[in-house]
């Protein structure tokens, strides 16, 4: 009897061990020797987390776009200065009333599986985003129709002039041109097919995404045979991988070590100022933050240099407006210098004393948690007691959506056109105006600038917008962070981009 029992136990154990060997973690593709002509090697890149999915129209995760940047194309794409350049579209014309844009699609472009990419694919992609109300739908609010009169022509008809249409159609890979059969089969979530320099070879959930060179690529063939993305959440571990040679490139470096790493041998660490910005927002639907004096008092109480040093270890540029210094739309304006006396005076004028302010931050972005400590200490000096609430991102977003906060700190990433920097955040009807800012002058200017086709006039309008927003302390802008990335000396041809796009198409790997 007892031996029967034991056999049963043994069988169950064998079953478990069987599962161990039988379930291989996804398919793996032999990417070595995929093509003998290149012999450019496989670049190993460590990113800080795993993409949620690889459908460019459905993901909102930066990790996904790090991968997809190399897989997909858009009609136009930003160059190093974020000016839009031809990509799938070779040229375009605009009607006199600015309502009809006609794009010429590059001839001979194919998807990585060899099937042709034509104007029909562009129409399909844009209509998919618009009709299914996917994430990038807000970029198409003025688009009335998208048509393809012939295989190399796309006509976009607008309801209102849209000077930033090119930025909307090329700013990021969330508006990429996808393949209809790939989408309809559902394969797009794990094995997307694009026309970019690389194609997805295999995706092992939780572990790696392997890209292989797209030999059908329409422009200069990539030098690398492929790129393997691994997901390393801990920056110390990512750095160790880079040092040990397991990884050739990472953007997940421990910020406190970056200054030392810059001077270290055996690694290349580069940074550029990004177009991202981080800010503090006060809830103007609540008293006393509806009073501009109180908001300005907070702005005067802050020492941005100290906040930046603590939150980013100096890897950021202090800025009192949103748009960074290297942009054509930068507006040099910095009315707030730390002045506790002035802050206290403003609070007195507003009749506010003994104020306790709730500050909502999220562990998803640790810099907000660190910055909050410094902000709390600085506001304490002018008599404002800050209660810091650290939430995980799901909860944080919930509270933000419900308006359950006195103040919060967060950042906006990946904006290019000034409309993206200001409209949704500061227009009284803006979708991201969670802090309930309302100024009719700003509303009017934003509506006007949105359709202004004269670039100089547009710049003047946005300068006015920026000044008013800063004066009203709608957002209290803090800094533009740097994009910091590191790679091994074997890697050449890589450039850190201000929009955080990770492009490996011109990169080579020395043996």
């Amino acid at each position, binding site marked *: *009897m*007892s031996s*029967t*029992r*034991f056999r*049963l*136990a043994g069988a*169950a*154990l064998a079953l*478990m061990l069987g*599962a*161990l060997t039988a*379930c*291989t*973690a*996804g398919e*793996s593709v032999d990417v070595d020797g995929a093509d003998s002509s290149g012999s450019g090697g496989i670049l190993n890149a460590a990113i800080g987390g*795993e993409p*949620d*999915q690889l*459908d460019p129209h*459905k993901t*909102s*995760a930066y990790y996904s776009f790090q991968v997809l940047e190399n897989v997909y194309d858009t009609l136009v794409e930003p160059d190093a200065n974020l000016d839009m350049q031809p990509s799938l579209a070779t040229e375009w014309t605009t009607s006199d009333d600015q309502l009809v844009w006609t794009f010429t699609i590059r001839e001979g472009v194919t998807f990585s599986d060899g099937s042709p990419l034509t104007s029909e694919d562009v129409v399909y992609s844009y209509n998919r985003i618009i009709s299914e*109300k*996917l*994430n990038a*739908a*807000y970029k198409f609010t003025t688009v009335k129709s998208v048509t393809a009169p012939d295989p190399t022509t796309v006509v976009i008809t607008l309801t209102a002039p849209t000077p930033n249409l090119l930025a909307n159609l090329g700013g990021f890979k969330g508006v990429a041109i996808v393949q209809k059969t790939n989408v309809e089969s*559902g394969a797009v*979530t*794990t094995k997307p097919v694009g026309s970019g320099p690389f194609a997805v070879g295999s995706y*092992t*959930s*939780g*572990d790696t995404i392997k890209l292989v060179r797209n030999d059908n690529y329409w422009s200069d063939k990539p030098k690398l045979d492929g790129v393997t993305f*691994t*997901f*390393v*959440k*801990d920056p*110390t*571990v990512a750095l*160790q*991988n880079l*040092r*040990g040679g*397991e990884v050739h490139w990472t953007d997940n470096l421990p910020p406190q070590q970056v200054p030392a790493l810059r001077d270290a041998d055996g690694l290349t660490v580069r940074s550029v100022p990004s177009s991202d910005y981080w800010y503090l927002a006060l809830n103007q639907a609540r008293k006393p933050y509806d009073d501009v004096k109180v908001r300005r008092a907070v702005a005067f109480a802050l020492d941005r240099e100290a906040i930046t040093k603590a939150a980013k270890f100096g890897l950021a540029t202090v800025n009192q407006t949103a748009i960074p210094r290297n942009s054509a739309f930068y507006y040099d304006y910095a009315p707030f210098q730390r002045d506790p006396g002035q802050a206290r005076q403003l609070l007195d004028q507003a009749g506010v004393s003994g104020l306790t302010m709730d500050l909502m931050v999220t562990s*998803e972005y640790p810099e907000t948690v660190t910055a909050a400590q410094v902000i709390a200490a600085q506001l304490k000096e002018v008599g404002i007691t800050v209660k810091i609430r650290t939430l*995980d*991102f*799901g*909860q944080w*977003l*919930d509270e933000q*959506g419900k308006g359950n906060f006195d103040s919060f700190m*967060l950042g*906006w990433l990946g904006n290019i056109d000034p409309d993206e920097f200001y409209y949704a955040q500061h227009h009284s009807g803006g*979708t*991201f105006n969670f802090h309930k800012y309302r100024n009719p002058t700003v509303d009017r200017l934003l509506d006007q600038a949105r359709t202004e086709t004269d670039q100089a006039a547009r710049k003047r309008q946005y300068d006015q917008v920026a000044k008013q927003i800063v004066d009203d302390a709608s957002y209290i802008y803090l800094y533009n962070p740097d994009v910091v990335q590191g790679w091994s000396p074997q890697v050449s041809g890589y450039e850190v981009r201000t929009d955080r796009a990770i492009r490996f198409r011109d990169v080579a790997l020395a043996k």
Partner: protein
Amino acid sequence: MARFVIRRLLQSGAVLLGVTLVVFLLLQLVPGDPVRVALGTRFDPQTYEALRARAGLDRPLVVQYFSYLGRALTGDLGVSFRSGRPVTSIVLERLPATLSLAVTAVVFAMLVAFPLGILSAMRSGSLLDHAARVFSQFGVSVPDFWMGIMGILLFAGVLGWLPPSGYVALTEDPLRWASHVVLPAATVGLVTASILTRFIRSSMLEVLSEDYVRTAEAKGLRTRVVVLRHVLRNALIPVVTVVAVQLASLLGGVIVIEVLFAWPGIGRLTYDAVQARDYPVLQGAILLVAALFLLVNLLVDMLYARLDPRITAR
């Protein structure tokens, strides 16, 4: 025996049913909206409603639960909110990594804990005993993520013997799998070994003071025989329970260690699913862990009868 197994399996089914209900209800209480998390900060009411409908979250809770349960019975655990992929395959993909880490860690722990626990019980009060107690105190009190980072800095950084993180499937390349599993398994195993050492030591000490041990010694049996045949066998019963509980909890995934070492197991899946409020994946992962737990317990109960004939599986 067969009746015992069948009855236990039926009980397990009822427990699993309970687990689905409790998990489902608990998830409703968790603050944070999965749709908002999926959309990030770029929140647009229209996009929000469209995604909510696609994920089936606009249906009444009762409908959501029973449609989930109905499909779960056929092995279909639903579709991930985030990736749109079937949960069953997502969860099963992660099982080998966690299984191999858990089994390696427990084997490592037993290799350390058995000699240490036995020797320190037999030479109670000796220098070795003190050293063993310091070791186990260290293991249970120092956080595992810290030990993990120290391990990476030392063995991957300074010495360069082992890769700092990552995973290679056992079936793909056993040698590279081994080099990757050593650090995380040793980190997890160290904690388990500490707990086991203390348990083996105290369990041995208890048996050593039993009358039958004195009798065995009195009849002139050699110490080796007394320890192996009389003491260890009797001391094993509670130890087996502890080993099993440890193994079962490791099978649930060691969240911190898996995240730290970029180990694509159940723990890391659970972590990501919580962050993203990906309820279907979370439910699937918890269900799988619960099933493994029940299975391990069943095996242990059967093992008891083998170790001690006085216990019969009924």
